[in-house]
């Protein structure tokens, strides 16, 4: 960068501007303070001089003319610093005695003190500012008594000097400090900007550097980094959903394509072709069901569905699912029991929990053979309120228990049962959204799924009364 660009960048820096503004504020305050002190002192000093002069004039004027002349003479003689103006003019304005040769221009002859310009004889400095009183004596002469205002001049000089010695260095220091500070901040911001640039170009794993001082900028940076973590996680999830869709739709689509291709190449008659078409539509419906289920899981996992959270009675949820599946179990001559005698309060989305329990029961009725039994339980467990779905079906081998909760897993022995293998991952997604634990145990025989609906810190924070 050229030096002028550096300067321009400095001028745009917020820290630099803040530093300058603070220095400016300080200087203006100091200036006002000094000006006030000067003004107050000057007013006081002038009033004091004026009163003194007026009193002197009265005192001198009381003397007889001869004594006045002598008094003037004496006073001039002792005025070594030449601060006094003392003179007597005749009625025509000619000087009679004293250190003035010309009557001060414009000085009113009224016995009160006024500012005036006077040329003191014997003083090489020419006309100087004085406070002076002109008073007419009984004989018609005019007595002028005045005093230079050198104290005020001195005071002004002191104030200006204070400004020079105090204010200028402070201002210069402030500018220097602001420059230094803003250069440091600019340097950091440049690094942050570079990091953000890399992230915007697609490097979602990049993070903004933290300086480590724990200051406000660091805290802000940490929040932004936290946000980036979350964005990265969501993008990864989206990508995973995309991969799943791509992977798991290809199989049914391939099947469908092969069927249609064979029908086209073969010599099947109208009736057989209609059967192929009907089968193809069923295949399409199945792929559509997979897409719907995947999108539903993604929708739940996106974590935006907490608006409907509220108090839920798990026993009521179980009763509803029992009512829904009782005829299904009846058809398979399964014994379908519900054990939920008392309300079991929890906090969550009633519709989603119903969906989760329905999926578990759907699974249980499907995999339990005809004549078996399925139990639906809502109770206060040792970990908190929970829902259990227990069956005496074939169970799930220990090696497969982890895998059944992942997407599309279907135990080998379940290939003959219709389904898309997404039911349990949907339940797992609903459990994650609620921060509920979701376990699978051996029920020997059969298996037991447990949804522990204990209030997590998150749920407590989002719950009513907070």
């Amino acid at each position, binding site marked *: 960068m050229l030096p002028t660009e550096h300067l321009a960048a400095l001028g745009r820096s917020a820290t630099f501007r803040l530093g300058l503004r603070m220095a400016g504020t300080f200087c203006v305050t100091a200036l006002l303070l000094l000006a006030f002190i000067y003004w107050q002192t000057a007013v006081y000093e002038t009033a004091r001089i004026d009163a003194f002069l007026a009193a002197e004039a009265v005192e001198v004027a009381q003397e007889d003319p001869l004594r006045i002349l002598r008094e003037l003479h004496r006073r001039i003689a002792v005025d070594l610093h030449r601060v006094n103006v003392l003179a007597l003019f005749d009625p025509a304005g000619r000087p009679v005695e004293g250190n003035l040769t010309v009557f001060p221009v414009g000085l009113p002859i009224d016995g009160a003190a006024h500012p005036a310009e006077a040329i003191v004889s014997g003083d090489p400095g020419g006309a100087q500012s004085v406070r002076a009183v002109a008073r007419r004596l009984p004989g018609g002469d005019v007595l002028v008594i005045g005093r230079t205002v050198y104290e005020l001049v001195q005071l002004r000089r002191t104030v200006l000097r204070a400004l020079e010695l105090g204010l200028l260095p402070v201002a210069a220091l402030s500018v220097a400090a602001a420059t230094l500070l803003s250069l440091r901040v600019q340097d950091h911001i440049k690094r942050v900007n570079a990091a953000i640039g890399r992230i915007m170009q697609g490097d979602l794993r990049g993070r903004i550097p933290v300086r480590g001082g724990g200051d406000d900028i660091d805290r802000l940076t940490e929040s932004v980094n936290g946000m980036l973590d979350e964005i990265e996680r969501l993008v990864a999830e989206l990508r995973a959903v995309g991969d799943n869709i791509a992977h798991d739709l290809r199989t049914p689509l391939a099947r469908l394509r092969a069927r249609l291709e064979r029908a086209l190449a073969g010599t099947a008659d109208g009736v057989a072709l209609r059967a192929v078409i009907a089968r193809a539509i069923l295949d399409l419906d199945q792929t*559509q069901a997979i897409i*719907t289920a995947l*999108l539903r899981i993604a*929708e739940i996992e996106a974590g935006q569905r907490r608006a409907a959270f509220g108090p839920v009675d798990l026993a009521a949820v179980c009763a509803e699912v029992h009512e*829904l599946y009782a005829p299904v179990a009846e058809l398979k001559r399964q014994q379908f029991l519900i054990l939920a005698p008392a309300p079991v309060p929890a906090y969550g989305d009633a519709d989603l929990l119903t969906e989760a329990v329905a*999926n578990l029961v759907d699974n249980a009725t499907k995999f339990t053979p005809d004549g078996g039994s399925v139990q639906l339980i809502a109770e206060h467990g040792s970990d908190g309120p929970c829902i259990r779905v227990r069956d005496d079906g074939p169970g799930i081998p220990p090696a497969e228990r982890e895998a059944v909760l992942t997407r599309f897993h279907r135990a080998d022995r379940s290939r003959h049962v219709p389904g898309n293998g997404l039911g349990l991952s949907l339940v797992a997604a609903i459990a994650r959204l609620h921060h509920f634990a979701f376990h699978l145990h051996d029920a020997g025989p059969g298996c037991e799924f447990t949804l522990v609906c204990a209030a997590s810190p998150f749920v407590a924070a989002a719950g009513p009364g907070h």
Partner: protein
Amino acid sequence: MPALILLIEDDADLAAEMAAHLQAQGHAVTLAPDGPSGAALAADPMLNLLIVDRLLPGLDGLALIERLRSSGVRTPALFVSALGALDDRVRGLRAGGDDYLTKPVALAELAARVDALLRRPLETRETVLRGGPLALDLIDRVAIRASRRIELLPREFKLLEYLMRRPNQVVTREMLLEDVWHYRFVPTTNLVDVHVGKLRRKLDAAGEASLIHSVRGIGFVFRVTD
């Protein structure tokens, strides 16, 4: 019940198939390929129904219906969209849509929904719904057939009431799940069939004609055959 339908859909092939299916049901269908042309036609008071895609060129389907509703046009509107999340559905109904279907839509489902929007369910001041030999007592919540009193579970009663208020009208499984069970998810098991089957067995004694008929691949219809 033939109706005049405006179909606003930008995919020409899909629009043609949908229109042909609806025309085969006796409806007259006008096509509009984009938002602005659809909006221009939709205010026609002669129209009985609008079928609107959500993502349309020129003007979003949601905005189109919102605009129509705010200008006082109350023609029933059916959204047909590729956006199928619950939020999308809710947004569609809030914008003034009367029903919402997610693509791909079975043509039979489309026809059933169109039918449902064109006909109003039976409203009666009487406390008994009648359909042929069957009477449904809305106060006592029991069905009576050939002087037999048939006790019904609460959900069975709702299911039967829903069907009887729509005589001779095809009702799909999804409509039943949405309107009778208020579920927003589709179970993998053929739950609706099981429930309807159980209800049918309760209503039909040996030798009696069935009143609830299955419509293959679509759903059910309450029909009294003599």
